[in-house]
């Protein structure tokens, strides 16, 4: 039973898969990819999107982090369940993950915001996070209730990457004053042992974000509309 994960240390898509594997106690081999010079393995395993993470289990590749999370849950169902048992609750968990994916452009716009647009893009992110706080989290400790589940893992990037976005754009959005329950969740989430032990180094991450922002802005690849 061989499990390999091709990833990149700063990628939130990869980190959520690492968390899932660790929570399930699955042993795996990790291969760090250079995204500017991807290995033949990544290009062969993910020919359509050519991205990480790629999970390879018994020689078969699974790609797209949300798909991988579900695969992990279904392959190792008896350890640390990551989805509720009730079909309606499962559908709701999958809904919030889908919501997070649908809102990725909103976060991206904030990440790469220009000086003139920073308050506008920040307001759009705040609106999205308010929905998440009100409707998905509510008064629960975690999105999963008393224990973390797949939705917590999916939004876990808010507890480390998002701070870098706020730092670079110069606007703070996720604060106790603006999003009290979500802010409290970020602190509780990062205290969970598996999460705490598997967070990227914050200094290195900020430097990485600054480099990526500079590169993307100068290449005009993602010019905000």
């Amino acid at each position, binding site marked *: 039973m061989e499990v390999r994960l091709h990833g990149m240390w700063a990628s939130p898509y990869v980190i959520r898969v690492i968390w899932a594997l660790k929570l399930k106690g699955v042993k795996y081999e990790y291969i760090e990819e250079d995204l500017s010079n991807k290995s033949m393995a990544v290009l062969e395993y993910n020919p359509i999107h050519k991205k990480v993470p790629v999970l390879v289990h018994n020689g*078969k590749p*699974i790609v797209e982090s949300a798909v991988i999370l579900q*695969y992990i849950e279904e392959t190792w169902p008896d350890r640390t369940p990551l989805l509720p048992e009730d079909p309606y609750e499962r559908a709701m968990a999958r809904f919030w993950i889908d919501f997070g994916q649908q809102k990725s452009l909103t976060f991206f716009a904030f990440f790469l915001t220009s000086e003139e647009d920073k308050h506008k893009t920040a307001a759009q992110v705040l609106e999205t996070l308010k929905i998440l706080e009100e409707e998905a989290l509510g008064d629960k400790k975690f999105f999963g209730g008393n224990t973390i589940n797949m939705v917590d893992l999916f939004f876990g990037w808010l507890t480390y990457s998002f701070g870098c976005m706020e730092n670079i754009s110069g606007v703070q959005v996720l604060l106790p004053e603006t999003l009290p329950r979500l802010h409290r969740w970020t602190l509780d989430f990062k205290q969970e042992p598996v999460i705490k032990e598997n967070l990227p180094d914050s200094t290195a991450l900020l430097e990485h974000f600054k480099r990526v922002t500079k590169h993307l802005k100068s290449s005009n690849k993602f010019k905000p509309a």
Partner: protein
Amino acid sequence: MGGVKVLGLNSSFPCVRVLWALKLKGVNYEIVEENLLNKSPLLLQMNPIHKKVPVLIHKDKPIVESLLILEYIDEVWKTTYPLMPEDPYDCSMARFWAKFVDEKVVVTAFEAMKSEGEGKEVAIVAAKETLELLEKQIEGKKFFGGDEIGYLDLVVGWICLWLPAIEQVGGMKLLDSSTFPLLYQWTQCFVHIPAIHECLPPREKAVDYFQTGLNYLRSLDASKK
């Protein structure tokens, strides 16, 4: 209470995916017809975040997003007609391709429909590239689900009637039987399955649906200029 309702309209293929699933499972349901240009209070209450159809209402609780509804239906009525593959790896492949269909195949087809002039040729090429990938996926199989139709067949099913409607409205040909013989053959087998056939709208309704949509989009663009 306890009955199954579908908020939607049978000219909308995401809605018909849900009807197909319910029919295959032998579940009785009621369709509550929606007017997308004048959404009902019930729809806005049941799907406040996305405000879209389809919405499945089961035991008075709403489930939204067609792909999530299909999985919900499969999990609730699990003893009849399984939709998702049994094997977790095959499940992950089905989910990956379902996402690809909605994010790439559908989107590029719409782009080609909407585009005009030089941009249209480019958009048509992009749409055909996505169909090529789908063609490779059906190779060696009667249906995407194997010998019987499954989740992915229901997701791809829009190409049997809605894609020709999109082609008509867009004045172009995307899925021709000589370029995509396997996919074409699949549409012929799929459309003759009784549960599938029974839920198909008249072709003119689908044409009307897209033409109305296109006119609306063009009127929005015109008012911005």
